[in-house]
């Protein structure tokens, strides 16, 4: 399934010409296709405005069950805003989010129980030790202490953090922090993992380990959604991809469908635009 949205999406809300800056548009509910109840995650007509800036405009996205879904886009495209709204961290101005047919914003506790979330740009309760943090996440999910202890142990081992289980998270490196946050997101065996920039600041070895864990998880029927800037990584790792720009989905589908005969990176640059030649920076040349 592939659909090209972007410039020709439905009615351009507010009579917007394609490619104009995203400011100055008033969000409004839009009548769109009904959500797909079979999808792991189905977003319809999402809008979010911060002050004058419209971060996400009338965004639709379907993530099939069992897919390894990449969400790519330039800085400020609205990836984090979209994922926050899709996971119940940020209330959309308009639009619906369905998690396997459950309306997330109408029944948050049911929908959230099946989601594992790694948000970007938030802190952790870093005065806890790694083990305590993972345990805390499990107990908050309502799990019993024995199950939590057992799973926490194996998760820490999988993340190569066993030796640092009793170290305070505040003393962890950036990569270790990402890994412990990921472990906290997986403790309750969610059916869908939503990971915002999971590989940022993670060293190559740990990143490879995490990729293996995620690939295993998808093989066993789980769904993973990751956002990333690294096209190469997404092309190798994911089977589906959506390119987001200016708060909208510009292209979505399987990786092969989206990239055609180009590399994903070239396709991305084509869609998003904005490549400039470095001119006028001669003064920067040191010789």
């Amino acid at each position, binding site marked *: 399934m592939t659909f090209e949205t972007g410039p020709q999406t439905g009615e351009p809300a507010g009579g917007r010409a394609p490619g104009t800056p995203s400011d100055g548009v008033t969000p409004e509910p839009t009548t769109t296709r009904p959500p797909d109840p079979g999808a792991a995650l189905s977003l319809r007509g999402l809008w979010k405005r911060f002050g004058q800036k419209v971060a996400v405009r009338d965004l639709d996205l379907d993530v099939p069950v069992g897919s390894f879904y990449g969400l790519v886009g330039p800085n400020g495209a609205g990836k984090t805003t979209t994922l926050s709204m899709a*996971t*119940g*961290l*940020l*209330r959309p101005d308009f639009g619906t989010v369905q998690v396997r047919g459950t309306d997330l914003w109408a029944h*948050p*506790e049911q929908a*959230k*129980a099946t*989601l594992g*979330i790694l*948000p970007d*740009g*938030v*802190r*952790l*309760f*870093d*005065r*806890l*030790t790694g*083990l*305590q943090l993972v*345990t*805390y*996440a499990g*107990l*908050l*999910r*309502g*799990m*019993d*202490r024995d199950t*939590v202890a057992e799973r926490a142990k194996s998760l820490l081992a999988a993340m190569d953090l066993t030796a640092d289980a*009793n*170290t*305070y998270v*505040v*003393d962890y490196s950036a990569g270790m922090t990402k890994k412990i946050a990921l472990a*906290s*997101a997986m403790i309750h065996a969610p059916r869908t993992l939503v990971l915002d920039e999971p590989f940022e600041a993670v060293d190559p070895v740990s990143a490879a380990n995490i990729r293996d864990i995620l690939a295993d998880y998808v093989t066993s029927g789980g769904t993973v959604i990751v956002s990333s800037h690294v096209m190469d990584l997404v092309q190798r790792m994911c089977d589906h991809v959506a390119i987001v720009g200016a708060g909208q989905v510009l292209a979505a589908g399987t990786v092969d469908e989206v990239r055609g005969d180009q590399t994903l990176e070239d396709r991305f640059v084509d869609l998003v635009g904005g490549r400039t030649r470095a001119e006028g920076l001669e003064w920067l040349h040191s010789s």
Partner: protein
Amino acid sequence: MVAQFLRLKLTLLANTLRRSVWQVIGLAVALLYAFGVVAFLVATAIAGGGRDPVVTGHAITIAGALAVLAWWVVPVFAFGVDQTLDPQRFTTFAIPRRTLLAGLAVAGLVSVPGVATALTAAGVSFAWWREPWLIPAALLGSALGVAACIIGSRAITTALAPLLESRRYREVLAAFAIVPIVLIGPAIGWISEEIGAVSSETTGDSVTVTADGSVLGAVVARFGELVAWTPLGAAWSLPVAVHDGAWGAVAARLAISLATLAVLWLIWDRSLAKALVTPAVGGGKGARSKGLGWFARFPDTPMGAVAARCATYWIRDPRYSAGISIIFLMPVILWLPAQSAENLGILLLAGPIVAWVLGFSVSNEIGYDYTAFALHVATGVDGRADRWGRVLPVLYLGTPLVVIVVLVAAALSGQWGVLPAVLGVCLGTLGLTLGVSSVSSARLVYPVPKPGESPLKSPQGAAMATMVAQMLAMLVVAALSVPVVGLGIWALTSANQLVGWITLLVGIAEAVLFLVVGVRIGARIYDRRGPELLQQVQGFP
């Protein structure tokens, strides 16, 4: 360069105001209040200057010295220092430190207290309007005094920051607080002796210090003259010395105030130089903790987990420790006035105060969590678990603590008869403040130092929001505590045992009622606004 710092500070201020109407209102109220105080002080000074310039000059010296002292000491205990222009942020710009310090010092004036202090200092110089040739000297003195305020507050907080960020925060703060407290007793004795001496002198007709010969004027002159020789008051006393034509004193006081500034500048310079290359790191390096800690002790439910996490933070997070340190200081603080008033009954106040501090300490829990709160939203913890979890550790620890404090106070003062009434007031206060905190922490979130930051940093633009939020919560607490406190006062004044026991029952009933209702309302607000609360803390500067 200094002008650029000033412009940067003003731009940042304007941007905070643009973010929210409440900030504008808060600032307007603060300015209005500050200008009211400034106008009152200046008018008083000018009126006093019309009657007796010299006594007024001495009074200004004393008031100025107190202002300097306040600027130096208050940030350490309350509020912290406005860190809109955090020097850490300028490290990559290769600004010479001298320029950086000058810029920060001038920009430090741009705040409500800064502007108010500067305006008052300038205004009171015109108390010498009867002898206008003294006004330049007065303005010079005021300028030096204001400089001592600003530079001193920066120097002291920068120098103490490494100490206070350490895990020994409590000890350091307690040590720092005990010095002035211990001095109170002797100081009161000394002051009353001096006053006695002065009044015997004036009534004995041997000295006529003031024009109207009042004892008060003489006392003021006496203390003004003394304070003038301290680093706190030297600058402010310049015009008095010039007026007296005591040129030796003028030179000496000028030297004292300049030397004070130089020393403060040096302290600031050195400690900032050190701070810039050793940025604060949270937590103890390589510290470890075995096993699950509190998580193994509380029940394995979401509520128990929240409670265990909060209990861990109470011990591990220096930002919480300030509240605890006050609890342990309370008996010491009350001991001295109780002794000097020869009424140990004053000690019984410790119970309600400790209860109130404990209950109020959880009134901005989500602000303290900062964005780590995302975990609560992501996991979908319900309001009941979140609210009770945050309240329970305080309740478990606080109830016995309050009872012990009251028992000790009763034992020391020997006033066992009032025990039921005081206990009732204490328990009522604890439950009530916890209930109100549960509501306010779900509704009024305001910026506090972020996890790992120095408890001395007050976040940009936060002061007003903080005060408004706390004031609101305090008003509610005050209004709701009328019944039990009223009963308590009745019991104490009438010494009626029955009323005392009724107070105890009403206090316990009130505690349970307000706690349950407060938590329930708070939980409902929390359930409705979880994502909005997260967005609010993410929007903190």
